[in-house]
Each structure stands twice: as structure tokens, then as C-alpha cells.
């Protein structure tokens, strides 16, 4: 598996062009969602520790990503997770 360089934890991932993200009223330009792209060796616990300082808060991330996660122990490299 290719080793991925740790991304900037505060970086906003590319989730589409600006025009794709804007509605007629420009409402999506207000989107403050923080995203995290999963890299090798990461777990929800580690991601929670990175953003919240406390790994025990990982269920917050799991709950916010139930549309893409079925099991908190199974996350994939490259997956983009919402950080509430």
C-alpha cells in the first residue's frame, strides 16, 4: 500500500469547484464543514484526538459520517470524513 504523507490537519480538501459548491443565492459559500482525508494507520480514535484532543470523542465523528461509515473500526485510506 502506498505510503501517504500526513495531510495538513486543518486543510480543506478539494470537494468540488467553487461554482459547483455555490447555489444561486451563494448559500454553499457559507459551508463551514471541516473535512479530514483518512491516511494510512489512522483510526477514528486518532482523528478525534487530533481535532478534539480526546480520542474518546470518536463517536462524534462516527455519528457525523454514518452515511459512509458502517463500523467505527473500519475506515479506508482516502475516505473524506466530516469533522463536526
Amino acid at each position: 500500500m502506498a505510503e501517504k504523507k500526513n495531510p495538513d490537519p486543518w486543510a480543506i480538501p478539494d470537494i468540488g469547484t467553487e461554482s459547483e459548491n455555490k447555489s444561486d443565492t451563494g448559500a454553499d459559500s457559507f459551508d463551514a464543514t471541516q473535512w479530514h482525508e483518512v491516511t494510512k494507520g489512522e483510526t477514528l480514535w486518532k482523528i478525534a484526538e487530533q481535532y478534539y484532543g480526546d480520542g474518546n470523542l470518536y463517536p462524534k465523528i462516527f455519528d457525523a459520517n454514518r452515511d459512509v461509515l458502517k463500523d467505527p473500526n473500519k475506515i479506508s485510506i482516502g475516505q473524506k470524513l466530516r469533522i463536526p
Partner: protein
Amino acid sequence: MRRAINYFVVTIFIGAVMIGCGAGDKGPAETALKGVDEAVTTAKADASKYLPEQAGSLDAQVAALRDKFNKGDYKAVLADAPTITAKAQEVASAAAAKKAELTKSWEGLSSGMPKVVEAIRSRVDILSQSKKLPKGISSETLAQAKAGLNQITEQWNAATEASKDGNLADAISKASSVKVKAAEVLTLLKMPVPEALKV
């Protein structure tokens, strides 16, 4: 003596003709003044809210026109009325355009800002439950963010109230303060600042 009497009669006649001509203009002048009043009243419905200075200028012009009418200067009333009516229509159009522009701005803000506020609230709530804060966020930073969130909520409620009262310009002005504060709090929390909040 007879000649003096003739002069007197002619003078009286000319005077009567002049007065007659002026009185003849009174009706049309009154109608013109009424028309101006109606045009200005219509224009001021939106202009007094969105273009108050221009609405004030229309009021002054109507007052001047009414003054001319009261002084019997009907010809001047008839001459000035079309200009003021045209100005009133121009102001009405400009006010309608301003209203549309402000409405669009407010719609964008009212659909977008709650998402920003919710994102901040969610992060503040989660960090408040954390036993140890992440790198770059101290307990003082979190306290500042909480205070900022309270200010944002208060200012946003005030903006929403202003919009409900129809004061869109005031609502947008208050929302601008909310945007600045929200960008500040998002930065404190190491969260991304949305495009719309960047100055």
C-alpha cells in the same frame, strides 16, 4: 378728465383679464399638484426605507411646489410638476432595484449563516466535553470561542429581527458583524473559514 377715466377703465380691464388668466390656471395646477403628490407617495413607499435621502429630496420638492401653488404661481406649478413626477418615478425604480438587491443579499445570508453558527456551536460543544484540548487550542482560546459564539448568536438574532421588521439594510449591516465575528471564532477553533466570510 375723460381721458383719465378712460385710462382707469382700461387698467381695470387689463387687470381683470390678467386675474382671469391666472385663475384659469388654478384648476390644472391643482390637478398637477395632486398628480405629483400621488407619484411621490407611491415612490416613498419603498424609497423612505431604501433611499431615505432621495425620499427626503422628493418631500422638499413637493413642499416647494405646494408653496408656489399657495402663492398663486400656478404657471410655475404647471411647469415644475412634470419634472418632479418624473423624478418620483425614477426614485421609485431605484428603490425597487435597491430592495431587490438587499433581498437577494439577505436571502444568501439567512440561508448560509445558520450553517456557520451551527458548525461553531457543534465544535464548541464537543471541545467542551474533551478531557484534553488539541494542539493550538488552549482553555483560554475555547473560552474566547464560547464568548464569541454567544455574541454571534445575539447579533444574528438581532439581524433576523431587523429583517422581520422589514429593515433589510439594518439586518444586512448586523449580519456583516456576525460574519466578521464568526470568521474570528472559526480561526480560533482551527476550522476552515468559508469563502463568504472572507473579506
